[in-house]
């Protein structure tokens, strides 16, 4: 065992002779990767690549030139054009209507499933969870063609008045968004301290009072996050809508798709910017709702 001691006998004999530093002093801790120059450059470059296209799109929606490449001065005229483009405007309204309806129903359905999975044990629960996860894992294109086949097979009426003509798309959107809501809400409930509920009952509250005063408030951030997710997923969806929509029900992504296939136009930039602003605002609002909650982590 004694050889364990005193290898590397490089010690300078006697006194306090200190060997000089072998290079630059370390200024960055070994795990402070975020302060390393090359990693910083890499992250900055990646973020640049991630955001540059989006920002160019936004900036050039204000460009006073159809060629869309050289800056010719600031203008709002393409916003005006996009607003007055009946097809684009209708598609925008359709998309928002579908997204709002989807959000409401998907949040309710998702919350119920989340409570079910959170509170109950029942035979076949893992299989049921797998069943609920189907819309999350299955490729969109498969879902899209399935919806197309389904609605044509059962003979879903077409040519109905607004907003009933959006029903098929909305139904499909709800089907693929509510499992996402269920996951988000359930993840939130996993952090619920059951003693809170027991305390409430101990203090004399009924089941219903406990549910409304203890469980629902705890669930709220999850509900908001889930609702936001449903809203964005619905607004974002192109593939499923593309297959479900009839010729007279055009949503914004479908409309943009048909416009983009022909050319890149500033109107599309303008309308896209509007949609980006809506989604980013929705995200920020949802984050605001969630922030005060940080302290009650269990």
């Amino acid at each position: 065992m004694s050889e364990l001691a005193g290898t590397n006998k490089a010690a300078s004999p006697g006194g306090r002779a200190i060997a000089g530093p072998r290079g630059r002093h370390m200024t960055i801790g070994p795990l402070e990767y975020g302060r390393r120059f090359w990693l910083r450059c890499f992250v900055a470059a990646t973020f640049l690549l991630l955001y540059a296209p989006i920002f160019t799109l936004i900036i050039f929606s204000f460009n006073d030139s159809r060629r869309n490449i050289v800056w010719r001065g600031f203008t709002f005229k393409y916003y005006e054009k996009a607003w007055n483009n009946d097809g684009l405007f209708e598609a925008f309204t359709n998309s928002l209507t579908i997204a709002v309806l989807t959000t409401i129903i998907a949040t309710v359905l998702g919350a119920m499933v989340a409570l079910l999975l959170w509170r109950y044990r029942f035979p076949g629960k893992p299989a049921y969870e797998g069943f609920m996860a189907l819309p999350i894992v299955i490729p969109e294109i498969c879902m899209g063609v399935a919806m197309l086949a389904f609605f044509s097979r059962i003979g879903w009426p077409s040519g109905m008045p607004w907003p009933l003509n959006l029903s098929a798309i909305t139904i499909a959107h709800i089907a693929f968004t509510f499992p996402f809501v269920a996951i988000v809400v359930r993840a939130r409930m996993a952090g619920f301290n059951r003693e809170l509920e027991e305390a409430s009952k101990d203090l004399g509250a009924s089941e219903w009072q406990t549910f409304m005063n203890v469980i629902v408030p705890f669930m709220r951030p999850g509900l908001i996050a889930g609702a936001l997710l449903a809203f964005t997923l619905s607004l974002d969806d192109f593939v499923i809508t593309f297959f479900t929509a009839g010729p007279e029900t055009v949503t914004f992504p479908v409309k943009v798709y048909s416009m983009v296939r022909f050319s890149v136009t500033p109107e599309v930039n303008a309308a896209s910017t509007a949609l980006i602003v809506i989604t980013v605002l929705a995200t920020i609002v949802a984050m605001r709702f969630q922030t005060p909650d940080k302290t009650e982590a269990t």
Partner: protein
Amino acid sequence: METWKQSKAVFWTLATPGTLWLAIFFVAPLAIIWGLSFAEKTSIVDTEITGTLSNYIRALGTPVYLKIIWKSIWISALATLMCLIIAFPIAFVVAFAPDKWKPILLMAVILPFWINLLIRTYALISVFRTRGFVNFGLEWLWDGANSILAFIGLGPAVLGAFEPLQMLYNNFAVIAGLVYVYMPFMVLPLYATIERLDKSFLEASLDLGASQARTFWSVVFPLTMPGIVSGIILVFIPCLGSFLTPDLLGGTNATMIGNVIERQFKAANDWPFGAALSFLLMYATFGALALRSLFAGRKSGMEV
């Protein structure tokens, strides 16, 4: 007293709506497609489910389609690999960032995910096209080089006129588009595992004499394997089934399975064949998921 946990009525109230919705509006449509994949066309509009396997045989036996399936797989694999290579340093930096920076950096990674897929793809087009910004920038550099060469006396326009790079409508554009669109899906699971990783494993490795690179390969890489596998699956599956990106960025010579499926249901009007292709895609998806659960051990199917 019966608490609501034991109440059958509450159980069924909670269970029924979601289950029914998913069964009628999701499983039933898939079942129809599944049935269709064993059907034959009897006329231009009619199909009959005859139990034939001809659609699958056609998909897996025709060189054209086999080539497309193969191409879809390698394009997706390459895009996934590039996502992994780019996302790992990002996830690393975010996970080791000071606490006050973490949410901001994470937000910066996730934010593009909230922006419409079509808009992001469209934005890429305006950057990549022949009259787009990349070519614009290159032309500027080219002209600059030309004038410098002219200035030092090599005569005017030595390099010749600028030929814009054809960056759209090829496989490169599709892969770049897929990487651009699905990167956040790779960063998030990686970040989650690195964040959960006990930092003292890294410190111990360094302390025992391993270099940073050695520490990465011997400690970080094996210990973050579950996150890597999750990320690969989360990116590979949507890449494989992607339709919009190859459609807009790939043009005719960079078709993937998704585009073939779409063509069968829209232009070609051969639903049974399209259905068979869709189900092949689904089987591939399930295969990938099974692989993942093999890797990640027995974990709940619902976590990312």
